[in-house]
C-alpha cells in the first residue's frame, strides 16, 4: 500500500485501520463512520436475490450524509441488485435495509433520486428531454395531463444548471451520451433528493464527459446529497471518488481508493490479475497483460 498517498487522506485511512469491523481482506472497514454525518442508509446482514437464489450474501454497509461512494465489481457481482435493495425494489431474503432510519417505503422513496442504467431504455420511445426531466416531479403533481408553468420552469432551471437547456425539446435519442446522462440526472434531481443512486453513470461516454459527470456528482455531494453509484471504470473512480466498495457477491473491501486498490483486493474482486500503478499521487489500474511483461504487484511512487 502506498503509505504516502494514503497519508494525504489521513482521516479516512485512520478510520480504515482503526475500525474494529474488518472486511474479508482485513483492510477495509464495514463501517465508515469517520466520514461523519448521520446514517442515511444502512444494510445489516442483508442477503438478496431472485427466485430464492441469492445474488449476494450477508452484506453490512452504512452510507452517511454527504458521502460519495463508488461500488465497483465485475458484471454479475450484484451491484445493481444492491442498489435495488436500497431502493426497495428487491426485498432482502435475510437482514434489514433501512433508508433514513426506516425500512424502505413509498414515503422514504420520495427522498431518493435514482438514475438507472441507460442501456435499459427504449431510445425510440417518443419523449423529449423535457418530458423525461418532468417525470422526476410527477410524484407531487396534479392529475391534470399537462404540467404547470412553474413545474416546467423548475425543470428548465435545473437543465440550465446541468448545461442541457438547449436539449429541452429534443428527442432523447438525438442527444449525446453525456447529455442523456444529464437528462436522467436532472430527472432524479428535480424531486430534490437527499440520497442519489446511480447505476453506471459513466458508461458509454467519452473521457471528458466521464470527468464532467463525476465532477458534477462531487459538486452535488458538496451540497449535502449522499451519492451511491456503480461503475466499471476503476481509473475514473480512483481519481474522483473518495470512498469505494469492492463488491463481488459480498463486500470484499471498502475504503479510500488508496487503500482498496491493491492487486490482492482487485484479484479477489475480479478474479483476475490487475496491476496497480501509483504515480505522483495518482492511482492507475491496468489489466493483466502488463503483469506478463514483468510488472508484478503495486508500484510505489
Amino acid at each position, binding site marked *: 500500500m502506498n503509505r504516502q498517498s494514503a497519508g494525504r487522506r489521513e482521516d479516512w485511512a485512520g478510520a480504515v485501520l482503526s475500525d474494529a469491523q474488518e472486511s474479508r481482506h482485513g483492510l477495509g472497514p464495514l463501517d465508515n463512520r469517520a466520514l461523519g454525518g448521520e446514517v442515511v442508509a444502512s444494510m445489516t446482514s442483508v442477503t438478496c436475490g431472485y*427466485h430464492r437464489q441469492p445474488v449476494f450474501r450477508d452484506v453490512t454497509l452504512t452510507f452517511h450524509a454527504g458521502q460519495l461512494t463508488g461500488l465497483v465489481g465485475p458484471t454479475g457481482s450484484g451491484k445493481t441488485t444492491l442498489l435495488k435493495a436500497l*431502493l*426497495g*425494489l428487491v426485498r432482502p431474503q435475510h437482514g434489514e435495509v433501512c433508508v433514513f432510519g426506516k425500512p424502505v417505503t*413509498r414515503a422514504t*422513496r*420520495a427522498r*431518493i433520486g*435514482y438514475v*438507472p442504467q441507460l442501456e435499459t*431504455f*427504449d431510445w425510440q*420511445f*417518443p*419523449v*423529449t428531454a423535457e*418530458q*423525461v426531466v418532468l*417525470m*422526476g416531479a*410527477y*410524484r407531487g*403533481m396534479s*392529475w391534470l*395531463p399537462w404540467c404547470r408553468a412553474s413545474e416546467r420552469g423548475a425543470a428548465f432551471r435545473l437543465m440550465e444548471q446541468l448545461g442541457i437547456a438547449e436539449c429541452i425539446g429534443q*428527442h432523447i*435519442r438525438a442527444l449525446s451520451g453525456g447529455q442523456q446522462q444529464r437528462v436522467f440526472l436532472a430527472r432524479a434531481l428535480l*424531486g430534490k433528493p437527499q440520497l442519489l443512486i446511480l447505476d453506471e453513470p459513466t458508461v458509454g461516454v467519452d473521457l471528458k464527459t466521464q470527468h464532467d459527470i463525476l465532477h458534477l456528482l462531487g459538486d452535488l455531494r458538496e451540497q449535502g446529497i449522499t451519492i451511491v453509484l456503480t461503475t466499471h471504470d476503476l481509473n475514473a473512480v480512483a481519481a474522483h471518488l473518495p470512498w469505494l466498495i469492492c463488491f463481488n457477491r459480498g463486500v470484499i473491501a471498502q475504503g479510500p481508493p488508496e487503500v482498496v486498490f491493491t492487486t490482492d483486493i482487485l484479484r479477489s474482486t475480479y478474479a483476475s490479475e490487475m496491476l496497480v500503478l501509483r504515480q505522483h499521487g495518482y492511482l492507475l489500474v491496468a489489466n493483466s497483460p502488463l503483469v506478463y511483461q514483468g510488472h508484478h504487484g503495486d508500484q510505489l511512487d
Partner: protein
Amino acid sequence: MISLTEWPLASLLEPLTYAFFRRALLASCLVGALCGLVGVYVVLRRMSYIGHGLSHAVFGGAVISYLMQVNFYLGAGLWGVASALLINEVAQRRKLGADAAIGIVTTASFAVGVAGISRQRRFTRNFEAALFGNVLGITPADLWMIAGVAIVSVVGILALYKPLLFSTFDEEVAEVYGIPTHGVNAAFALILAAVILVSMQIMGVTLIAAALVIPASAARLLTQRFDRLLWIASLIGAGVSVLGMYASYYLDLASGASIVLIGTAMFLVAWLMSRGPAGE
C-alpha cells in the same frame, strides 16, 4: 344523371340515407379513435399479444352470456374484466413466462366460447359476427354503450396521463418515483378490456388486435412526441374506420376486414413517408 364533380359527394351521402349505416359509421369512428388512443400504450408497452389474447378471452364471456341469456355487455364485460386482471397478474410473473401464461388464459377462455357454440348450434350467424365483425347489428343501445366507454376511457387515460407515461417509459423507476405501477397497470388493463368489449361487434374478435396496433404503429412513424402520437393515432384510427366502412358498404366486405386492410395501406404510406428526408 350524376356529374363527375357530384359523384364523390353522392357516394359519400348515399349510404348515410340508411339509419343502420349512420349508426355503424358513428360507432366505427368512435371505436377506431378509441383503439388508436389505447393502441399507443399497447404498442409502447409491447402488449400487442395481450391485446390479441384479451379479445379472444372476451369472446368466451360473450358466448357464455348469450347462452345464459345475460346482457352481453354485463356478461362479457365481467368476463373481460376478470380476464384482464388475470392477464395483468400473470404478465408480471416471470417464472412461467408471461407469454405462455397469457396464451393459456386467453385460449382457454376462447375455447370455452367455441365449446358453448358447438353445444348450441343455433347461432352460427352470431358466431361469425363475433369473429369477423358485423356492423349491421349496431343498435342505438350499442352506440350509447360505445360512447359511454369512449368517455370513461378518455377521461381515465387523461387522468392517468402522467403515471401511464412514466410507467410505460420506465416501469421500474416509476415505482421508485412514487407511481403505483401495479394499480396503473390494472387500471389500463380494465380500460383495454372495455375498449375490446365495445369493439367486438365492429371489428370482430380476430381483428381487434390490428385496430389497436396499426394506427399507433403508423403514428409512431410520423412523430417523436408522445402527446402528438396520441392525437395522430386517434385520428388515423377514426379516419381508417370511416374509409373502411365505406369500403365495406360499396365492396360488400366484412367491416373489420376492410378497416384493417385500409389501416395496413395507411401504415405503408406512413412507413414510406418516414423513410424520406422529411421523416423524423
